[in-house]
């Protein structure tokens, strides 16, 4: 093969084909053993029995899912009715994650567009500025936000100094603070992929539309959005998925009373509940939801490619 004058077939002329297996073994081993296997084991654990006072017993049962979906009364001997508590927590988490995604899009799209339309030099500065928060520790950003919106914090004091409000807004420990935290946490995740899509956008399309007397906003809706849609969808996924399982925002900004999925699961493992099977079941349900979202996304993607 080496030294031959005829061009080697694509992807085979460099000699790596023969060692694909050895090259991939580390990846298979690491992700296979330390992610795939654990997730499968978690699925098994969700069917185990909680030992009284914590720990698990290897007796298979549907108790965890039963606790999630059915309410059998305080003493467990009443006829089962639908348990709305956990469904509500999941529903509220989905709703909050969706809202965070929407707000991120409303703020992120114009920002990305604006940056992509700057001349090269200023664009680099803008891009640098939106990238920095993306690299800053999420915990630190959440703590900073909490400091800013505290009852006697800088935000309330500024608003009061400006005379906009007379009493400090009670933001911390509310759903609003959690919502704000999700939006703030994942905003950079929206701007960057949308920017990447807008940057590749061919503005001649907009000009052609303008020549045909389409207004700016019609052009945006009819021409731009369909073209940059993949970037927008990627941004939405990058915001929605981590928002759904967020732990820091609800825990630090919402107090322990406003549960989201993430804090509910955390409570089962690290809090006083010590109910591993129930936590595993909740994690399974969360993962199923995310997989559904990603599958729909992948389907849309391949359909888009086919077109």
């Amino acid at each position, binding site marked *: 093969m080496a030294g031959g004058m005829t061009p080697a077939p694509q992807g085979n002329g460099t000699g790596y084909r023969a060692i694909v297996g050895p090259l991939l073994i580390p990846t298979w*081993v690491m992700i296979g*053993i330390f992610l795939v296997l654990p997730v499968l084991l978690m699925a098994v654990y969700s069917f185990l029995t909680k*030992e*009284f*006072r*914590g*720990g698990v017993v290897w007796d298979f049962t549907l108790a965890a899912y039963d606790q999630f979906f059915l309410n059998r009364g*305080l*003493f*467990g001997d009443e006829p089962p009715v639908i348990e709305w*508590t*956990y469904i509500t927590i999941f529903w509220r988490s989905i709703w909050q994650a969706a809202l965070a995604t929407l707000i991120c899009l409303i703020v992120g799209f114009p920002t990305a567009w604006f940056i992509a339309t700057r001349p090269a030099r200023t664009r680099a500065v803008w891009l640098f500025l939106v990238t920095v928060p993306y690299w800053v520790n999420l915990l630190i950003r959440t703590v900073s936000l909490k400091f800013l919106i*505290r*009852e*006697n914090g800088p935000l309330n004091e500024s608003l009061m100094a400006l005379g906009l409000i007379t009493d400090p807004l009670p933001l*911390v*420990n509310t759903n609003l603070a959690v919502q704000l935290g999700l939006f703030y946490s994942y905003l950079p995740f929206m701007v960057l992929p949308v920017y990447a899509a807008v940057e590749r956008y061919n503005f001649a399309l907009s000009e052609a539309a303008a020549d045909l007397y389409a207004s700016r906003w019609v052009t945006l809706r009819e021409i731009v959005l369909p073209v940059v849609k993949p970037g927008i969808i990627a941004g939405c996924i990058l915001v929605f998925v981590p928002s759904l399982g967020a732990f820091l925002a609800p825990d630090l900004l919402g*107090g*322990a*009373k406003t*549960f989201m999925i993430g804090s509910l699961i955390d*409570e089962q*493992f*690290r*809090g*006083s*509940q*010590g109910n*591993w099977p129930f936590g595993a079941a909740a994690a399974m349900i969360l993962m199923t939801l995310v997989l559904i979202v990603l599958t729909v996304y992948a389907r849309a993607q391949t359909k888009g490619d086919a077109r």
Partner: protein
Amino acid sequence: MKKLLTTATAFALLAGAAHAEGKLSVYHWFEYIPQELVDKFTAETGIEVTIDTYDSNESMLAALKAGKLGQYDVAVPADFMVKIMADEGMLDTFTPEEMPNHGNIAPQWMDVYFDTGRKSSIPYQWGGTSFSVNRDVYQGDISSLGIIFDPPPELQGKINVLDSQNEVLILGSLYLGIPQCTTDRDQLKALNDMLLNAKQHWASFGSDTSKDVLVSGDAAAGMIYNGFSAKARAEGANVEYSYPKEGHVLWMDNMVLLKDAPNRDNAIKFMNFLLEPENAAAVTNYAAYTSGVTGVEPFLDDAIKNSPENNPPADATPGVFAQACDAETQKLYDAIWTNLKK
């Protein structure tokens, strides 16, 4: 795969072996031991101390049962929890001869029901749990647990509640006048309904945050430990600790020797160190509770000794200790707590 696992296990064992030399692994409550005291112990013995914290007896038990047993040398459960852990076989024992300062244990804390003759535990600190109110916000009468469970309009939505099953449920039971460890379904239902109704007026659940929310003003009233309330007052919050007429919770925290402790000898040394009156007093001066060691008085700060939190008024209703219920009964209380927290 197997090879990798073996290698990983070998690494872990190596790390574990290195761990056994001059180390001590403590599982402790948050904000319960001054760093200076730990440094003093390290200076005297050369033993390096690492401390992980927990925020309730129940979460400590759950973590240990879920695999952390064998990683820690000592923990600091309250009275009833010592009993539970002993019954679960989670404690190791020592003899008084191993611990020269064993005789310093105050007589009243020596023959306790949860560890007669103190073979697995030593007294750490004891104190009480009720609630405190910010007097800038509310000036009315605070002599009833109704402040927490049926709060006046000024305090509604501004109350922090301890994230601690046993304390919340006992205070609730005291408020309703029902006994602990009851199996009477009507009483349990009443407790459950009362708590669910009260929850709408609560802003947050939190034990480690219970001082900070009072100091920062995020909460105007909160369930709290007496010493922690004294610390909130020392940090500038205008809070008053209540000795409610229905009663309050009493507890004695004990340092226990855990089963499979990786550094048993160092653990004994540390417990002996904490039975030294001067060191026990250092904990009291820091945490603002009361020591269970004799001879601490000369070392105590006057502000701690004479604090209103540590000295209930003469006519105060006496506190009650938590009882360790039997398993079947405990499951009913667990259900109430799960129901409340969800």
